[in-house]
């Protein structure tokens, strides 16, 4: 079955290629068939492969399609590598991707650039698969940049609006900053090992470096740079909220479920290097912690439903980083998967709402939709519960709980990281249910237009089930102790080493997490449903409003970067538009012309002056010949 591996990314690529070439000439139905079908078949192959993988449990399956190039021993291949880690990612990418594609057939039905949309989406799925299946870092980098391109194209999908284009470019450029760091990391890795093959690096790194060796730390930090950029973590998170300019399925697929978690994948994939660089690990955890808080607070103040979700994504990816940072690899990946389900679900629901409300995205203009859009409401509720880690019944509870617990129980854990996570969980449940109450309760403020049909509802329902049930494959020790997921990953990702004798406190921590979540929901209920006047009283306070504005703007990062980087760069460029070096040559030319004019004045045309010239010359020559 391993031979089919290449088809998984190849099919979406082929779909994209077909759509680029013929997209404008074929019927919409065919476009959908190609677009959805290619991903669907990929998903099916994934399923088949997955089943086989589960049954035979090989360490990995590798398939080399061709040798990319070979220069003096630098010989990356176009080769795919399938192991448990990539399996999880492929699964999420193809299945969630497939669902979102289906969803898109309805969501984008009215758009005249239907084919372009599916072409880009297919291209994205292909690139993303390339990223997670690559057996060497260069191919991974190909996928990495490829998804960046698709992200750019899809954020700027509605290109007529300059703001969208701006958001798209911002996304591309900021992630490119991270990519640059990553590229330098690759140069270093190559210098160290003479290869970019991931497995070889993993085995050789352990032999070459001691823990904490300087090179390892630098490389890990550089890779982290790439991960941070792609995953919208501090300090490169600013592009993600703006990326919501793209169509909602795009936000669901790229900016929630898959692409933004590429950083998580990279760190998990290169975990050997990171383990050798404790400083980098700490940095991962700290970045995760800070990001989840910063983004959480920012999410509290947003009105645009998609921006809330965007900040929530940043925050949730922060949780994943937090997990990775303490070495809880499988917890991080588990949260990725669950997050992929529920965040895609939430985005899709948001999309359905936006579609229904004639592209209205401001939550202040929504309300009372629970009756009008019941399926959307219930699925959204499941997603929100999962996001807010509603105890026991939501998948998010289990995945997040595991992370929080490992902050204390893990060897690298730290009480501050735990507290940050806990506070984050609290905020998460507030803003999540703020969203729920603002959107679905209260008075109806905008007329509901489009009612979703099956293409929207079916994906919603499936994702809803997954968001609900997905958590049960990995249950805590004291609570069923199901470890299907971490077992699955163990051959690839080492289990986190737990501080002994800590298990007894586990139930207390779970309880704490549950309480925090519930209290958060209650506060949201209080402020946004029961007593909206409380909000207004807050709004009257100057300080509170200042904080609100600060948070609303995403903690002022945009403004900061604007002042620090964008403006100086633009200024530098504009001020030198005419290239001052050119001025030097112009000066040279002018001097020459000036000399010409100067010399010309000697040619007076008067004979006596010429005689004078000869005499002067004679005097000079005589002087030289007599005196020297």
């Amino acid at each position, binding site marked *: 079955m391993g031979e089919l591996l290449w088809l998984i990314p190849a099919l979406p690529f082929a779909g994209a290629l077909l759509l680029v070439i013929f997209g404008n000439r074929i019927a919409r139905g065919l476009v959908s068939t190609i677009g959805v079908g290619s991903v669907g078949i990929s998903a099916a192959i994934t399923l088949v492969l997955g089943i086989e993988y589960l049954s035979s449990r090989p360490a990995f399956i590798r398939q080399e399609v061709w040798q990319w190039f070979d220069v003096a021993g630098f010989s990356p291949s176009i080769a795919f590598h399938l192991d448990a880690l990539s399996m999880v990612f492929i699964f999420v990418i193809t299945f969630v991707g497939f669902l979102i594609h289906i969803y898109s057939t309805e969501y984008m039905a009215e758009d005249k650039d239907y084919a372009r949309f599916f072409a880009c989406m297919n291209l994205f799925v292909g690139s993303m698969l390339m990223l997670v299946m690559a057996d060497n870092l260069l191919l991974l980098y190909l996928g990495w940049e490829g998804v960046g391109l698709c992200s750019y194209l899809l954020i700027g999908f509605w290109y007529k609006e300059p703001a969208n284009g701006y958001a798209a470019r911002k996304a591309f450029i900021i992630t490119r900053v991270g990519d640059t760091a990553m590229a330098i990391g690759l140069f270093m890795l190559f210098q160290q090992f003479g290869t970019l093959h991931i497995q070889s690096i993993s085995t050789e790194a352990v032999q070459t470096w001691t823990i904490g060796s300087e090179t390892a730390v630098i490389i890990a930090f550089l890779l982290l740079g790439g991960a941070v950029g792609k995953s919208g973590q501090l300090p490169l998170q600013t592009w993600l909220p703006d990326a919501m300019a793209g169509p909602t399925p795009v936000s669901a697929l790229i900016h929630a479920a898959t692409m933004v978690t590429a950083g998580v994948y990279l760190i998990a994939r290169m975990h050997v290097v990171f383990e050798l660089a404790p400083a980098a690990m700490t940095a991962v955890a700290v970045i995760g912690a800070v990001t989840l808080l910063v983004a959480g607070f920012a999410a509290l103040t947003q009105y645009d439903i998609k921006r809330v979700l965007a900040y929530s994504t940043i925050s949730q990816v922060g949780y994943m980083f937090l997990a990775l940072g303490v070495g809880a690899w499988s917890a991080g990946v588990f949260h990725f998967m669950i997050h992929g389900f529920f965040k895609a679900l939430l985005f899709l629901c948001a999309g359905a709402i936006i579609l229904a409300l004639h592209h209205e995205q401001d939550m202040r203009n929504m309300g009372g939709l629970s009756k009008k859009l019941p399926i959307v409401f219930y699925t959204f509720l499941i997603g929100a519960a999962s996001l807010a880690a509603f105890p026991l019944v939501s998948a998010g509870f289990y995945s997040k709980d595991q992370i929080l617990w490992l902050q204390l129980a893990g060897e690298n854990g730290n009480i501050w990281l735990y507290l940050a996570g806990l506070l984050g969980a609290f905020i998460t449940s507030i803003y999540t249910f703020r969203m729920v109450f603002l959107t679905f309760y209260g008075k109806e403020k905008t007329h509901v237009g489009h009612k979703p049909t099956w293409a929207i509802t079916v994906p919603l329902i499936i994702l809803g089930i997954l968001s609900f049930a997905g958590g049960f494959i990995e249950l805590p020790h004291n609570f069923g102790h199901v470890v299907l997921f971490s077992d699955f990953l163990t051959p690839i990702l080492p289990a986190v080493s737990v501080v002994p004798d800590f298990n007894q406190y586990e139930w207390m921590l779970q309880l704490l997490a549950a309480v925090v979540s519930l209290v958060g929901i209650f506060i949201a209920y209080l402020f946004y449903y029961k007593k909206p006047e409380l909000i207004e009283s807050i709004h009257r306070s100057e300080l509170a409003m200042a904080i609100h504005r600060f948070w609303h703007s995403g903690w002022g990062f945009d403004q900061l970067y604007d002042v620090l980087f964008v403006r100086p760069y633009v200024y530098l460029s504009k001020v030198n538009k005419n290239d001052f070096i050119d001025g030097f040559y112009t000066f040279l030319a002018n001097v020459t012309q000036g000399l010409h004019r100067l010399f*010309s004045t000697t*040619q*007076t*045309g*008067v*004979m*006596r002056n010429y*005689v*004078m010239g000869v*005499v002067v010359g004679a005097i000079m020559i005589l002087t030289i010949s007599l005196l020297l």
Partner: protein
Amino acid sequence: MTTIPMEYGLLLAGMLFMLGLISVLIRRNIIFMLISVEIMLNAAGLAFIVAGSHWAQPDGQIMFIFILTMAAAEVSVGLALILQIYHQLKTLNSDAANFMKG
């Protein structure tokens, strides 16, 4: 018989040459310029004669005859040209003949 040192003769020739040169510089009238040039040429001729007598060779005098001949030819062409110039410019001021410059 005491001979005059060659240097004296050359000095005389040099002075004559300088006189001619200076008058070429300060004269505007083309005819006078021509005359001045002739003076310079004759100065050179004188120098040749002096040098020739110093070395007791006839060569210096021969050169002088050449110079005379050449000067005569030159003057004849020169006068013809000056006539033509006067015909056109109605003046013999050499400064007036400055159509070409730059």
